[in-house]
Protein backbone atom coordinates (compact mmCIF):
# COMPACT_ATOMS: atom_id res chain seq x y z
CA UNK A 1 0.00 0.00 0.00
CA UNK A 2 1.53 3.28 -1.15
CA UNK A 3 1.75 6.45 0.89
CA UNK A 4 -0.87 8.15 -1.31
CA UNK A 5 -3.41 5.48 -0.40
CA UNK A 6 -2.61 5.98 3.24
CA UNK A 7 -3.29 9.69 3.10
CA UNK A 8 -5.86 10.54 5.73
CA UNK A 9 -5.51 7.13 7.37
CA UNK A 10 -2.09 7.53 8.95
CA UNK A 11 -3.47 9.34 12.00
CA UNK A 12 -5.87 6.58 13.11
CA UNK A 13 -3.20 3.97 12.41
CA UNK A 14 -0.77 5.75 14.73
CA UNK A 15 -3.46 6.20 17.37
CA UNK A 16 -4.30 2.49 17.13
CA UNK A 17 -0.68 1.42 17.62
CA UNK A 18 -0.45 3.61 20.71
CA UNK A 19 -3.71 2.28 22.15
CA UNK A 20 -1.84 -0.73 23.53
CA UNK A 21 0.95 1.12 25.31
CA UNK A 22 3.17 4.24 24.99
CA UNK A 23 6.00 4.02 22.47
CA UNK A 24 8.71 6.05 20.74
CA UNK A 25 8.79 6.82 17.02
CA UNK A 26 10.82 3.83 15.89
CA UNK A 27 8.73 1.39 17.96
CA UNK A 28 5.50 2.85 16.52
CA UNK A 29 6.82 2.23 13.03
CA UNK A 30 7.79 -1.34 13.87
CA UNK A 31 4.33 -2.02 15.26
CA UNK A 32 2.74 -0.60 12.14
CA UNK A 33 4.84 -2.88 9.94
CA UNK A 34 4.24 -5.87 12.14
CA UNK A 35 0.47 -5.44 12.40
CA UNK A 36 0.05 -4.71 8.69
CA UNK A 37 2.23 -7.61 7.65
CA UNK A 38 4.62 -5.18 5.98
CA UNK A 39 1.93 -3.98 3.60
CA UNK A 40 2.49 -0.29 4.14
CA UNK A 41 5.17 1.24 1.97
CA UNK A 42 5.59 4.66 3.45
CA UNK A 43 8.60 6.87 3.94
CA UNK A 44 9.45 6.18 7.56
CA UNK A 45 10.19 9.81 8.30
CA UNK A 46 6.60 10.81 7.58
CA UNK A 47 5.33 9.46 10.88
CA UNK A 48 7.28 12.11 12.83
CA UNK A 49 5.46 15.16 11.44
CA UNK A 50 2.23 13.22 12.01
CA UNK A 51 3.20 12.49 15.62
CA UNK A 52 3.95 16.19 16.21
CA UNK A 53 0.63 17.19 14.68
CA UNK A 54 -1.33 14.69 16.78
CA UNK A 55 0.39 15.94 19.89
CA UNK A 56 -0.38 19.54 19.01
CA UNK A 57 -4.04 18.56 18.51
CA UNK A 58 -4.07 17.09 22.01
CA UNK A 59 -4.55 13.48 20.87
CA UNK A 60 -1.09 12.44 22.07
CA UNK A 61 1.22 13.55 24.83
CA UNK A 62 4.96 13.00 24.87
CA UNK A 63 7.94 13.15 27.16
CA UNK A 64 11.64 12.36 27.05
CA UNK A 65 12.80 9.15 28.63
CA UNK A 66 16.22 7.54 28.87
CA UNK A 67 16.38 3.96 27.63
CA UNK A 68 19.69 2.12 27.33
CA UNK A 69 21.54 5.40 27.68
CA UNK A 70 19.58 6.98 24.81
CA UNK A 71 17.10 9.85 25.01
CA UNK A 72 13.82 8.90 23.42
CA UNK A 73 10.61 10.78 22.91
CA UNK A 74 7.84 8.52 24.14
CA UNK A 75 4.29 9.15 22.95
CA UNK A 76 1.15 8.32 24.93
CA UNK A 77 -2.46 8.30 23.81
CA UNK A 78 -4.55 10.89 25.65
CA UNK A 79 -8.21 10.55 26.59
CA UNK A 80 -9.15 12.73 23.63
CA UNK A 81 -6.95 10.55 21.42
CA UNK A 82 -8.74 7.43 22.61
CA UNK A 83 -12.14 8.97 21.88
CA UNK A 84 -10.94 10.05 18.45
CA UNK A 85 -9.66 6.56 17.72
CA UNK A 86 -13.07 5.05 18.54
CA UNK A 87 -14.76 7.57 16.25
CA UNK A 88 -12.26 7.04 13.40
CA UNK A 89 -12.63 3.26 13.70
CA UNK A 90 -16.41 3.62 13.38
CA UNK A 91 -16.01 5.95 10.37
CA UNK A 92 -13.62 3.54 8.70
CA UNK A 93 -15.98 0.59 9.11
CA UNK A 94 -18.83 2.56 7.54
CA UNK A 95 -16.56 3.64 4.69
CA UNK A 96 -15.21 0.14 4.14
CA UNK A 97 -18.72 -1.38 4.09
CA UNK A 98 -19.85 1.23 1.59
CA UNK A 99 -16.86 0.66 -0.70
CA UNK A 100 -17.28 -3.08 -0.42
CA UNK A 101 -20.96 -2.81 -1.30
CA UNK A 102 -20.11 -0.83 -4.42
CA UNK A 103 -17.15 -2.90 -5.51
CA UNK A 104 -18.97 -6.09 -4.75
Amino acid sequence: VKTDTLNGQLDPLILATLAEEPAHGYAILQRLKHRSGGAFDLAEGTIYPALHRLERDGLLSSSWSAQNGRRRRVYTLTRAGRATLIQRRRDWLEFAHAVEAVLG
Partner: protein
Amino acid sequence: MSWLSQLSDELRARGVPSRERHRILAELHDHIASEPGCEPRLGDPDGLASQFADEIGLELQAIDFSSVLPGRWLALIGTLAGVAGAGLLTASATLRRSGTLVAGTAGSAGDVFDDIPLIRWAWLRRPPGRLGAAASLLAGLAVTLFEWRADRSVAEGLQRGGVRSIRGGCRLSPAWPRHRRRDAPPARRRRDGAPSRFRFTATGGRPRSGACGGHPARQLRPRQTEPGRAHRPGGAD
Protein backbone atom coordinates in the same frame (compact mmCIF):
# COMPACT_ATOMS: atom_id res chain seq x y z
CA MET B 1 27.26 15.63 4.70
CA SER B 2 25.15 13.23 6.74
CA TRP B 3 21.42 12.76 6.34
CA LEU B 4 20.77 14.44 9.71
CA SER B 5 22.96 17.43 8.80
CA GLN B 6 21.02 17.87 5.57
CA LEU B 7 17.74 17.67 7.46
CA SER B 8 19.01 20.21 9.99
CA ASP B 9 19.96 22.63 7.21
CA GLU B 10 16.61 22.17 5.47
CA LEU B 11 14.69 22.73 8.70
CA ARG B 12 16.73 25.86 9.42
CA ALA B 13 16.17 27.13 5.89
CA ARG B 14 12.41 26.76 6.42
CA GLY B 15 12.48 28.77 9.62
CA VAL B 16 11.71 25.95 12.06
CA PRO B 17 12.83 27.32 15.47
CA SER B 18 15.91 25.80 17.05
CA ARG B 19 14.07 24.21 19.99
CA GLU B 20 11.72 22.35 17.69
CA ARG B 21 14.59 21.55 15.31
CA HIS B 22 16.64 19.97 18.09
CA ARG B 23 13.70 17.85 19.13
CA ILE B 24 13.14 16.59 15.56
CA LEU B 25 16.83 15.84 15.09
CA ALA B 26 17.02 14.02 18.44
CA GLU B 27 14.05 11.83 17.54
CA LEU B 28 15.43 10.98 14.12
CA HIS B 29 18.90 10.43 15.55
CA ASP B 30 17.37 7.85 17.87
CA HIS B 31 15.53 6.30 14.92
CA ILE B 32 18.78 5.95 12.92
CA ALA B 33 20.62 4.64 15.97
CA SER B 34 17.93 1.96 16.37
CA GLU B 35 18.51 0.73 12.83
CA PRO B 36 21.78 1.97 11.31
CA GLY B 37 21.64 2.53 7.56
CA CYS B 38 17.91 3.21 7.47
CA GLU B 39 18.33 6.79 6.25
CA PRO B 40 17.15 6.08 2.67
CA ARG B 41 13.87 4.73 4.08
CA LEU B 42 13.31 7.85 6.12
CA GLY B 43 12.80 9.80 2.92
CA ASP B 44 14.32 12.84 1.32
CA PRO B 45 15.54 15.42 3.91
CA ASP B 46 14.13 18.22 1.78
CA GLY B 47 10.67 16.63 1.56
CA LEU B 48 10.62 15.74 5.26
CA ALA B 49 11.65 19.27 6.25
CA SER B 50 8.81 20.62 4.10
CA GLN B 51 6.38 18.32 5.88
CA PHE B 52 7.59 19.50 9.27
CA ALA B 53 7.41 23.10 8.15
CA ASP B 54 3.84 22.55 6.92
CA GLU B 55 2.71 20.62 9.99
CA ILE B 56 4.55 22.50 12.70
CA GLY B 57 6.08 25.61 11.22
CA LEU B 58 2.74 27.26 10.53
CA GLU B 59 1.55 26.60 14.03
CA LEU B 60 4.77 27.89 15.53
CA GLN B 61 4.50 30.99 13.42
CA ALA B 62 0.94 31.42 14.61
CA ILE B 63 2.01 31.01 18.23
CA ASP B 64 4.69 33.61 17.65
CA PHE B 65 2.06 35.88 16.13
CA SER B 66 -0.44 35.38 18.94
CA SER B 67 1.90 35.66 21.88
CA VAL B 68 5.20 37.31 21.07
CA LEU B 69 3.82 40.19 19.05
CA PRO B 70 1.33 41.31 21.71
CA GLY B 71 4.14 40.81 24.20
CA ARG B 72 6.28 43.30 22.34
CA TRP B 73 3.42 45.75 22.13
CA LEU B 74 2.68 45.20 25.78
CA ALA B 75 6.23 46.18 26.62
CA LEU B 76 5.81 49.37 24.64
CA ILE B 77 2.39 50.11 26.11
CA GLY B 78 3.66 49.38 29.59
CA THR B 79 6.53 51.79 29.08
CA LEU B 80 4.19 54.46 27.76
CA ALA B 81 1.75 53.89 30.62
CA GLY B 82 4.63 54.22 33.06
CA VAL B 83 5.81 57.43 31.41
CA ALA B 84 2.23 58.67 31.44
CA GLY B 85 1.90 57.89 35.11
CA ALA B 86 5.12 59.74 35.83
CA GLY B 87 4.00 62.62 33.62
CA LEU B 88 0.76 62.98 35.54
CA LEU B 89 2.66 63.55 38.72
CA THR B 90 4.86 66.32 37.32
CA ALA B 91 4.05 69.97 37.45
CA SER B 92 4.43 70.40 33.68
CA ALA B 93 1.04 70.90 32.03
CA THR B 94 2.29 69.55 28.68
CA LEU B 95 3.60 66.37 30.26
CA ARG B 96 0.39 65.99 32.22
CA ARG B 97 -1.78 66.39 29.12
CA SER B 98 0.31 64.03 26.98
CA GLY B 99 0.47 61.59 29.89
CA THR B 100 -3.31 61.58 30.23
CA LEU B 101 -3.69 61.01 26.48
CA VAL B 102 -1.23 58.12 26.44
CA ALA B 103 -2.71 56.56 29.55
CA GLY B 104 -6.19 56.80 28.02
CA THR B 105 -5.19 55.16 24.74
CA ALA B 106 -2.85 52.52 26.17
CA GLY B 107 -5.72 50.41 27.48
CA SER B 108 -7.52 50.44 24.12
CA ALA B 109 -4.33 49.54 22.26
CA GLY B 110 -3.78 46.71 24.72
CA ASP B 111 -7.31 45.45 24.07
CA VAL B 112 -6.71 45.35 20.33
CA PHE B 113 -3.50 43.35 20.65
CA ASP B 114 -5.05 41.11 23.26
CA ASP B 115 -7.71 40.15 20.68
CA ILE B 116 -5.12 38.99 18.15
CA PRO B 117 -5.42 35.29 19.13
CA LEU B 118 -9.19 35.53 18.64
CA ILE B 119 -8.71 37.17 15.23
CA ARG B 120 -6.19 34.48 14.37
CA TRP B 121 -8.63 31.78 15.38
CA ALA B 122 -11.36 33.31 13.22
CA TRP B 123 -8.97 33.80 10.32
CA LEU B 124 -7.14 30.48 10.31
CA ARG B 125 -9.94 28.41 11.84
CA ARG B 126 -7.36 26.86 14.13
CA PRO B 127 -7.55 27.13 17.88
CA PRO B 128 -4.39 28.39 19.57
CA GLY B 129 -2.01 25.70 20.79
CA ARG B 130 -1.50 25.16 24.48
CA LEU B 131 1.59 27.32 24.49
CA GLY B 132 -0.16 30.04 22.53
CA ALA B 133 -3.22 29.89 24.79
CA ALA B 134 -1.10 30.17 27.92
CA ALA B 135 0.90 33.05 26.46
CA SER B 136 -2.31 34.79 25.39
CA LEU B 137 -3.76 34.34 28.85
CA LEU B 138 -0.65 35.85 30.44
CA ALA B 139 -0.67 38.67 27.90
CA GLY B 140 -4.34 39.31 28.70
CA LEU B 141 -3.60 39.48 32.42
CA ALA B 142 -0.72 41.87 31.79
CA VAL B 143 -2.94 44.05 29.60
CA THR B 144 -5.59 44.13 32.32
CA LEU B 145 -3.00 45.22 34.85
CA PHE B 146 -1.69 47.93 32.56
CA GLU B 147 -5.23 49.04 31.79
CA TRP B 148 -5.98 49.30 35.49
CA ARG B 149 -2.86 51.41 35.93
CA ALA B 150 -3.76 53.54 32.91
CA ASP B 151 -7.32 54.09 34.16
CA ARG B 152 -5.96 55.15 37.51
CA SER B 153 -3.66 57.59 35.73
CA VAL B 154 -6.59 59.02 33.79
CA ALA B 155 -8.56 59.43 37.01
CA GLU B 156 -5.62 61.25 38.55
CA GLY B 157 -5.34 63.37 35.44
CA LEU B 158 -9.01 64.27 35.59
CA GLN B 159 -8.67 65.19 39.23
CA ARG B 160 -5.73 67.44 38.49
CA GLY B 161 -6.32 68.76 34.97
CA GLY B 162 -10.10 68.46 34.90
CA VAL B 163 -10.65 71.24 37.43
CA ARG B 164 -8.61 73.52 35.24
CA SER B 165 -10.69 72.81 32.19
CA ILE B 166 -13.87 73.71 34.08
CA ARG B 167 -12.29 76.98 35.07
CA GLY B 168 -11.19 77.48 31.49
CA GLY B 169 -14.77 77.13 30.35
CA CYS B 170 -15.70 79.83 32.75
CA ARG B 171 -13.09 82.13 31.33
CA LEU B 172 -14.53 81.74 27.86
CA SER B 173 -17.97 82.78 28.94
CA PRO B 174 -17.46 86.57 28.87
CA ALA B 175 -18.30 86.31 25.15
CA TRP B 176 -21.72 85.12 26.10
CA PRO B 177 -23.28 88.51 26.95
CA ARG B 178 -22.69 89.65 23.35
CA HIS B 179 -25.37 87.23 22.24
CA ARG B 180 -27.83 88.11 24.89
CA ARG B 181 -30.74 90.28 23.96
CA ARG B 182 -29.89 93.90 24.34
CA ASP B 183 -33.38 94.71 25.53
CA ALA B 184 -33.46 91.97 28.14
CA PRO B 185 -33.86 93.32 31.62
CA PRO B 186 -30.85 92.89 33.85
CA ALA B 187 -31.19 89.80 35.97
CA ARG B 188 -31.80 90.15 39.65
CA ARG B 189 -28.98 89.44 41.94
CA ARG B 190 -29.19 86.09 43.65
CA ARG B 191 -28.83 86.05 47.36
CA ASP B 192 -28.95 82.31 47.92
CA GLY B 193 -25.28 82.03 48.73
CA ALA B 194 -24.34 80.16 45.56
CA PRO B 195 -20.65 80.24 44.62
CA SER B 196 -19.67 83.25 42.62
CA ARG B 197 -18.91 81.38 39.40
CA PHE B 198 -22.35 79.80 39.34
CA ARG B 199 -23.91 83.12 40.22
CA PHE B 200 -22.21 84.47 37.14
CA THR B 201 -23.71 81.74 34.96
CA ALA B 202 -27.13 82.26 36.44
CA THR B 203 -27.17 85.99 35.84
CA GLY B 204 -25.46 85.91 32.48
CA GLY B 205 -23.52 89.00 33.31
CA ARG B 206 -19.98 89.95 32.69
CA PRO B 207 -17.40 88.68 35.12
CA ARG B 208 -15.01 90.85 36.95
CA SER B 209 -11.61 90.73 35.42
CA GLY B 210 -9.54 87.76 36.60
CA ALA B 211 -12.42 86.03 38.29
CA CYS B 212 -15.25 83.72 37.41
CA GLY B 213 -18.38 85.39 38.62
CA GLY B 214 -19.66 88.73 39.64
CA HIS B 215 -22.93 90.45 39.09
CA PRO B 216 -23.33 92.78 36.12
CA ALA B 217 -24.92 95.32 38.40
CA ARG B 218 -21.56 95.69 40.06
CA GLN B 219 -20.04 96.57 36.71
CA LEU B 220 -22.60 99.23 35.95
CA ARG B 221 -22.01 102.72 37.02
CA PRO B 222 -25.16 104.37 38.35
CA ARG B 223 -26.63 106.62 35.72
CA GLN B 224 -27.36 109.99 37.03
CA THR B 225 -30.87 110.99 36.04
CA GLU B 226 -31.17 113.65 38.64
CA PRO B 227 -28.48 115.05 40.76
CA GLY B 228 -28.04 112.90 43.86
CA ARG B 229 -30.35 110.09 42.69
CA ALA B 230 -29.01 106.80 41.36
CA HIS B 231 -30.51 104.89 38.44
CA ARG B 232 -32.46 101.79 39.52
CA PRO B 233 -31.95 98.88 37.08
CA GLY B 234 -35.21 97.62 35.62
CA GLY B 235 -37.18 100.48 37.10
CA ALA B 236 -38.85 103.36 35.37
CA ASP B 237 -36.65 106.33 34.80
